[in-house]
């Protein structure tokens, strides 16, 4: 109930928003119309108005510039509205479990369209082919290609191709011819449509739409083979439809009498050229992406962008060469997926996946909403009962016939035949979608008189298939007891056996002396491993390609995650960080999660250090128990230690660094940095205090010495340097910075010195282990620019900018502090603040 309330609230809110904007939009339209009517006048008045206003008010503080932002604003707003619609729909699970989301989105579109109609009295927004084909479709298809299960796809490629090519041609031809026949028979009254135009119409109606299919089949988890058959077909036949459409479009413009055998042959040839050419362009771009990602190590942040940009470029290139753009981007995604996933950093791969999904899902949402909105338009609704109903009927019937016939042929050659039930679902899953609509809108009104009727019919077919068939799909799948996709859990033995099976099958084919699928696959694999991977993959990525190994890695990662969650669930967060080895393990598996070797080793380490039970180390659930027990015992001992760590680290919570090129700051490096900074500050302090004759407070010294020794057993010199420094003074020091800064106008904008002092990690690392000498060396190099140093010196002299004196002063503070100091005595209030500050 409450949820419903929320949903209603959201709906109301979005409706209100829409109303506001559509009214604004309405005004905009009206004004635009006005300007169209009296162009010169309005522009003149505009100018005068402009001049007028500038005359009177001078500089306007706020001006309302709707036209300035109109287009992007509307785009952004529509995106927002569509997303909000999706949000509302997804909030109601009990509805989406019955009615597929795509259908609901279309209905949402109806409502929006109605509101716009009410406000404007004219259809002002609709899905235009340009927007659809250039800005909405590519990412959906790219996503589909990129996430395509390649092995499954290629195993069933034959069937998919048969359905996509022959099936689509069959659909187009049968629909066109039957409609034409019906018209000849007089079933549709008086329509000005010729045979060619019917065929054109048939070709645009022929294709099963991937967007709709994904949207519906995503929710009914049918088995893999069935899914790939429908989905692969829908992807490839989009390309085919567009090609067919273009061919017939050319025929229509050519006109009936001029078409002879040569033209038809040219049409058929162009069909193949367009389809294969498009695929080829896609392959080339896919390879290009793979090659590029080999060397993007240094620009990891924009690395994912390459995939999107190049994918889009492959789409545009194919479009430019009048090849099949859809096929191009599909193959681009399919081709590059393996290599870029191996080449890129794990984070980038995740980014690509998420961004891909985000784009695809977003544009899918927008497509459906706009399909709904487009319906509310008086112009396109040309009703012709015969035409519309017959189209619906034929679309459905011929789909069934086509699928059954083609599968019957295929089943003679398939090892595992497609069952009857599967065929029914395949036929029933022939959803038409936005591609058909986009093509219908692209029809040329001059050549095809009944364009509006066609658009209208297309819309009805789309609604019928997406909404009605979408809703009934799930019950049908249940009722027919279609084999569902098994929830698979990766298992190492399974993977291993699987791999062994493959080898065995190849061997069997060898023995029986035939060249079958397995033989081909093994040859391809060999070729791929030895050539493709060598060219397209980073050397480091290449060796991690083994599947068994990959599964092992995944399982290890999963275990590690469980291990941590389990520890946290039991309420001892410290269990995670009580041992250095475990911390190591955690960090490593996060940062270089692909480096199995490392993760594995540290895994081992983690397990070994706590339980020395197993000679062959591995992570498993059983072992968690033991580890945890050991952890519990160690808890008390470690509590103090943990506290120390936390206190020491508390400071860094305040530090945020903005960087465009690095995503996150290395955590442990920061600590090292912090240690270094504190050390340096200490030295500076002791240096100045020695000069000023002020001693560092003794009490603190003692207190911290105890703690530090516990913490850093390795860095003795550091301990000494750190002595006067206690961890829990971190926040204090921050609060004291400000007075100092304010007193000195020259360094007002200076923030916490920590932020500006950036020590490269490697230097910081060496700092930790090195003794005094290395430290002082570094200090000599770096200190002149240390802000804390500047700050300290600043109040003492007014002309702080003279760097010469600075360097002079700074060199001494390393080893021979007292030998050559030029510092004048400080002002009286200075020393106490100093103490607090450091």
């Amino acid at each position, binding site marked *: 109930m409450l949820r419903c309330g929320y949903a209603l609230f959201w709906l109301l809110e979005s409706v209100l928003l829409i109303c506001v904007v559509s009214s604004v939009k309405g005004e905009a339209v009206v004004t635009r119309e006005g300007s169209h009517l009296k162009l010169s006048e309005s522009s003149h008045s505009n100018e005068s108005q402009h001049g007028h206003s500038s005359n009177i008010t001078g500089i306007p503080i706020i001006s309302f510039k709707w036209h300035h932002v109109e287009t992007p604003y509307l785009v952004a707003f529509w995106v927002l509205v569509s997303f909000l619609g999706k949000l509302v729909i997804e909030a109601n699970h009990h509805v989406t479990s019955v009615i597929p989301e795509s259908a609901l989105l279309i209905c949402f579109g109806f409502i929006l369209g109605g509101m716009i109609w009410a406000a404007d009295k004219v259809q002002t927004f609709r899905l235009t082919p340009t927007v659809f084909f250039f800005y909405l479709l590519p990412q959906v298809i790219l996503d589909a290609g990129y996430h395509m299960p390649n092995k499954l796809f290629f195993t069933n490629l034959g069937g998919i191709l048969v359905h996509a090519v022959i099936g689509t041609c069959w659909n187009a031809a049968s629909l066109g011819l039957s409609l034409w026949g019906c018209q000849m028979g007089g079933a549709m009254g008086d329509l000005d449509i010729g045979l060619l135009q019917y065929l054109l119409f048939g070709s645009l109606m022929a294709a099963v739409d991937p967007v709709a299919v994904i949207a519906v089949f995503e929710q009914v988890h049918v088995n893999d083979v069935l899914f790939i058959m429908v989905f692969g077909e829908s992807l490839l036949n989009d390309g085919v439809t567009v090609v067919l459409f273009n061919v017939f479009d050319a025929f229509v413009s050519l006109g009936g009498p001029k078409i002879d055998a040569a033209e038809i042959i040219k049409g058929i040839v162009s069909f193949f050229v367009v389809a294969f050419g498009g695929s080829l362009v896609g392959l080339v771009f896919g390879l290009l992406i793979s090659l590029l990602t080999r060397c993007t190590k240094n620009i990891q942040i924009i690395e994912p962008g390459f995939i999107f940009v190049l994918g889009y470029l492959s789409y545009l290139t194919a479009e430019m060469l009048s090849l099949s753009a859809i096929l191009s981007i599909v193959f681009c995604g399919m081709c590059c997926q393996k290599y870029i996933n191996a080449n890129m950093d794990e984070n980038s791969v995740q980014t690509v996946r998420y961004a891909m999904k985000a784009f695809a899902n977003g544009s899918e949402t927008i497509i459906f909403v706009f399909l709904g909105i487009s319906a509310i338009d008086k112009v396109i609704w040309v009703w012709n009962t015969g035409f519309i109903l017959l189209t619906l009927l034929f679309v459905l019937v011929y789909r069934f016939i086509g699928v059954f016939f083609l599968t019957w042929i295929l089943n003679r050659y398939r090892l595992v035949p497609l069952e009857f039930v599967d065929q029914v679902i395949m036929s029933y899953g022939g959803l038409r979608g936005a591609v058909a609509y986009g093509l219908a809108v692209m029809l040329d009104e001059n050549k095809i008189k009944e364009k509006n009727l066609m658009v209208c019919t297309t819309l009805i077919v789309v609604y019928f298939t997406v909404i009605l068939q979408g809703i009934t799909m799930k019950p049908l799948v249940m009722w027919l007891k279609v084999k569902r996709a098994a929830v698979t859990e990766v298992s190492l033995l*399974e993977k291993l*056996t699987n791999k062994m099976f493959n080898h*065995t099958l190849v*061997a069997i084919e060898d023995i029986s002396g035939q060249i079958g699928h397995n033989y081909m696959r093994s040859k391809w694999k060999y070729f791929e491993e030895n050539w493709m991977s060598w060219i397209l993959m980073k050397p480091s990525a290449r060796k991690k390609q083994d599947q068994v190994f990959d599964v092992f890695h995944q399982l290890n990662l999963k275990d590690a995650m469980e291990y941590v969650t389990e520890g946290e669930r039991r309420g001892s967060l410290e269990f995670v960080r009580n041992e250095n080895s475990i911390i190591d393990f955690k960090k490593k598996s996060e940062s270089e999660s692909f480096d*199995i070797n490392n993760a594995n080793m540290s895994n081992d380490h983690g397990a070994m250090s706590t339980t020395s039970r197993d000679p062959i180390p*591995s992570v498993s659930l059983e072992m968690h128990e033991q580890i945890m027990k050991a952890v519990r015992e160690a808890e008390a001992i470690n509590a103090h230690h943990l506290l120390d760590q936390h206190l020491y680290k508390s400071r860094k919570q305040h530090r945020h660094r903005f960087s465009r090129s690095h995503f996150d700051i290395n955590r442990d490096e920061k600590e090292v940095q912090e240690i270094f900074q504190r050390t340096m500050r200490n030295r500076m302090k002791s240096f100045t205090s020695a000069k000023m004759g002020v001693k560092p407070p003794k009490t603190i010294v003692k207190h911290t010495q105890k703690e530090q020794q516990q913490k850093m057993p390795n860095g003795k010199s550091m301990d000494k340097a750190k002595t006067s420094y206690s961890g829990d003074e971190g926040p204090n020091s921050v609060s004291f910075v400000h007075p100092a800064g304010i007193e000195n106008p020259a360094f007002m904008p200076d923030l916490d010195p920590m932020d500006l002092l950036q020590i490269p990690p490697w230097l910081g690392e060496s700092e930790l282990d090195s003794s005094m000498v290395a430290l002082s060396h570094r200090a000599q190099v770096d200190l002149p620019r240390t802000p804390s140093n500047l700050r300290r010196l600043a109040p003492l002299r007014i002309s702080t900018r003279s760097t010469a004196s600075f360097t002079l002063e700074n060199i001494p503070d390393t080893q021979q502090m007292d030998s050559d100091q030029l510092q004048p005595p400080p002002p009286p209030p200075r020393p106490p603040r100093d103490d607090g500050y450091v």
Partner: protein
Amino acid sequence: MGSSSSSRNKIPNAQELMRQTGFSSAHLLRLHDRFESLDRDNRGYLSPDDFEALGGLAMNPIGGRIIEAFFSSGIPWTFPPLSGFWLISVQLTETETKKEHSKSSPAAGPGSSNLYDLDRDGKISREELLQVLRAMLGLQVTEEQLQSIAERAIQEADLDKDDAISFDEFKKSLEKMDIDTKMSVSFLK
């Protein structure tokens, strides 16, 4: 058609075989031809050497293992098979033709388990698993990693905690796998 029926006559008990295996005569004929071409010395049976001479098998990382499994029963591979064994192994892997699904699933288990189980004690020990892994995973993987993979795999499947995978455990762990589909080879004519 005449030639095929005449050469079918070369195969003794062709009808019997066809009935047992569900192969068509074309399949049988093809197998027979292959058999003869493999049997280079015309001994009337196949030895492991004959298989090892195959180029593809030599390249196969577990080729030796497969051959071993085929000959593990000790029954010679003659063409009209002497016993059911190689019929079964033919069936389980080679020509699970379209109608033969039901027969294969019990057979496939022991077959693939045989590939692991070297000492024929009915269990896959860690050492045996390790050997298979070593053969299949190649050089990039260190011995230590192999060991942890083997350990892990055994832990996964080992239900009675005897540090080895028995045949039942093996079957259970592969329950979900569609062995029928996986271990079928389409037999071209």
